[in-house]
């Protein structure tokens, strides 16, 4: 029931029976691409609205409630405004890099959509190095940010981009190490294998304390990697006005904005896949009756529920904590998170060899 895989099956059989194989494959590519772009737009609208509402309720106010029913169309109206605005290129800017930068950030976020399993058997590309692909492609975004900061010909942008470079490169280490600890437990980099291994319980429960440590480190590291408060030093509104995108306006700015939210979605989806079982329902060992009841909830709802829970946690961080200073940020990574996650990987390895996990 409700399974998205039946829809994909219908589409595939229809394409296969109507066109010759090459054109059918081509059409599939086009459809997948269109779906990603649509998903992007929808995610942007939903997440921006969610952020505004979450922040409003944390800040004793109501949030957007004027455009459309209960304010649902607010972000659509904002997007329209940004589309109509003039995109200014400052004098003295490197025009080519300045125009290219938002697309680099955007494309890296789009590429990351490929290996994510949105529901049971609903995945664009189940490549055998899935997790490695995610961690490598996600680091392309920093090139876009550095490009934006350098080409703007603005000192604030430059400072923001340099901070961002230092920050993303450092935090990728602990994010990578916490991903590795799950990969060690599963024994595969493939996303579908990782999800299948959580049939009898999610890794956060099965992996004892090391998995929980890895999960916490993962959450901190991805918050830093997506440049979200309390690690939003690249933007640092109160210090650098808007950091690397100070000079951007109109749709180019919107692309940065959209990419930020898409990145949040992706890292939360990866977190949900690795630690909370992806689309896998909540199963407890061999309790057949309980597991069957849980199976009645569609897999897509499980996936989006977990992902949005993690997104909410990240938003919660943003609206509660003050920002760290750049040296404190790097100290946190190199002096605390990295040694802890290295030791944690060791623990996980021992656990995996001795088969202590469930």
């Amino acid at each position: 029931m409700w399974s998205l895989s039946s829809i994909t099956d219908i589409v595939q059989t229809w394409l296969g029976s109507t066109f010759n194989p090459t054109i059918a494959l081509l059409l599939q590519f086009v459809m997948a691409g269109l779906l990603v772009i649509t998903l992007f737009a929808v995610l942007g609208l939903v997440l921006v609205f969610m952020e505004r509402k979450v922040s409003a309720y944390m800040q004793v106010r109501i949030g957007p409630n004027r455009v459309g029913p209960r304010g649902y169309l607010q972000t659509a109206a904002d997007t329209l405004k940004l589309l109509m605005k003039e995109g200014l290129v400052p004098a003295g800017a490197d025009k080519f890099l300045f125009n290219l930068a938002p697309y680099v950030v955007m494309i890296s976020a789009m590429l990351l959509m490929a290996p994510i399993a949105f529901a049971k058997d609903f995945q664009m590309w189940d490549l055998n190095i899935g997790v490695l692909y995610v961690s490598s492609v996600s680091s392309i975004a920093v090139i876009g940010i550095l490009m934006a900061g350098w080409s703007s010909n603005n000192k604030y942008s430059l400072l923001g981009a340099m901070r961002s470079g230092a920050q993303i490169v450092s935090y990728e280490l602990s994010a990578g190490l916490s991903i590795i600890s799950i990969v060690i437990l599963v024994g595969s980099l493939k996303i579908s294998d990782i999800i299948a291994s959580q049939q009898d319980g999610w890794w956060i429960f099965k992996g004892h304390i090391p998995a929980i440590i890895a999960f916490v480190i993962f959450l901190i590291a991805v918050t830093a990697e997506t440049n979200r408060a309390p690690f939003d030093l690249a933007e640092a509104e109160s210090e650098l006005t808007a950091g690397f995108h100070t000079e951007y306006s109109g749709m180019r700015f919107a692309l940065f904005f959209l990419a930020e939210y898409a990145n949040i979605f992706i890292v939360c989806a990866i977190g949900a896949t690795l630690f909370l079982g992806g689309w896998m329902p909540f199963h407890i060992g061999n309790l057949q009756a309980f597991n069957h009841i849980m199976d009645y909830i569609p897999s897509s709802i499980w996936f989006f529920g977990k992902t949005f829970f993690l997104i909410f946690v990240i938003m919660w961080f943003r609206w509660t904590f003050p920002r760290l200073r750049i040296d404190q940020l790097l100290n946190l990574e190199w002096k605390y998170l990295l040694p802890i996650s290295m030791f944690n990987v060791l623990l996980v390895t021992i656990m995996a060899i001795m088969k202590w996990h469930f």
Partner: protein
Amino acid sequence: MFEEVATTEQGDLVINVGPQHPSTHGVLHLIITLRGETIMKIEPHLGYIHRSIEKMCEGLTYRQFVYVTSKMDYLSSHINNHGCVLCVEKGLQLEVTPRAQVIRVLMDELTRIASHCLWWGALGMDVGALTPFFHAFREREMINVIMEETCGTRLTMNYMVPGGVMADLHSNFQKRVKQFIKDFKPKLIEYDDLLTNNSIFIERMKGVGILSKDDAVSYGCTGPTARGSGVSCDIRKWYPYEIYDKLNFEEVLETEGDSYSRYMVRVREFRQSLSILEQLIDNIPEGDFQTKTKAVLKLPKGEFYSKVETARGEFGVYIVAEGATNPYRIKFRSPGFSNLSALDHIARGQKIADMIAIMGSLDFVIPDIDR
């Protein structure tokens, strides 16, 4: 005007913070020399909001000039007005009725709480936490409502007149202030949870921007800025005016001199101001709210000085009178100006992010610096 410099001879980066910048809280222009992210030099440039208030005051009568000062430190306009009327009363040797004295002190302390509320929220924004701002404004709004009922305005109250206050208290005043005291106390605990005890916040503020006791004195710092460095300088204690000498409150002192102690001074002052309100709200004496004065005030020939403790420090009013209906010369001593002069000294060698936190902890109101 200023020469456009991108880098110095040593290769340091020169950036302009302001006049339009989210955390200068106004049109302050700082030219900052940076080596990497470390501050080598800060050069404040003033004049963007200079309205020559002192000169303007010289053309106005002793009744009128009081209200121009509301636009200087607009967050404690009440206390500015208070300083001015005290100086005029000194010149006229006017006795103020007990009721007016109590009303003035009540209003001063409410203003102090409102001003500290805004500072607290804005400091949160400076260090990157956006939520405290809204929480602080919720409480500030309650004070604004009280002010609006009695004084008629919310920000520039213009309630003080030489000889008392302009109108009697609104009938809701006592009820609302009591309600505010009751509501505000639990909110202070909430404030502590949000910022004071937040480990990131402590990390950002402790040991940053240290102003030693000697420096605080030599730069002429006053108010919470100096008290954070252990300089006892509360005008309400040292040179009590109105009924402050009869009240039971303590001067808040911290000794570290860093941003966190300046923060703590203000947060602890919330409680002191609340206690003053509590002592007075049930003991407002009956009587006139204004002494009878002549329609046209004329100060005798001479020089008069009075000072009050605003939310930011010592506010002094110096009047030279020639016996006419308007002052011959007026000079205001504003707390923000002296506190700003210490910025370059305490922010050197710190990171640019710390500079913003230090500025927040010094609590600048730019129209006060730049009259």
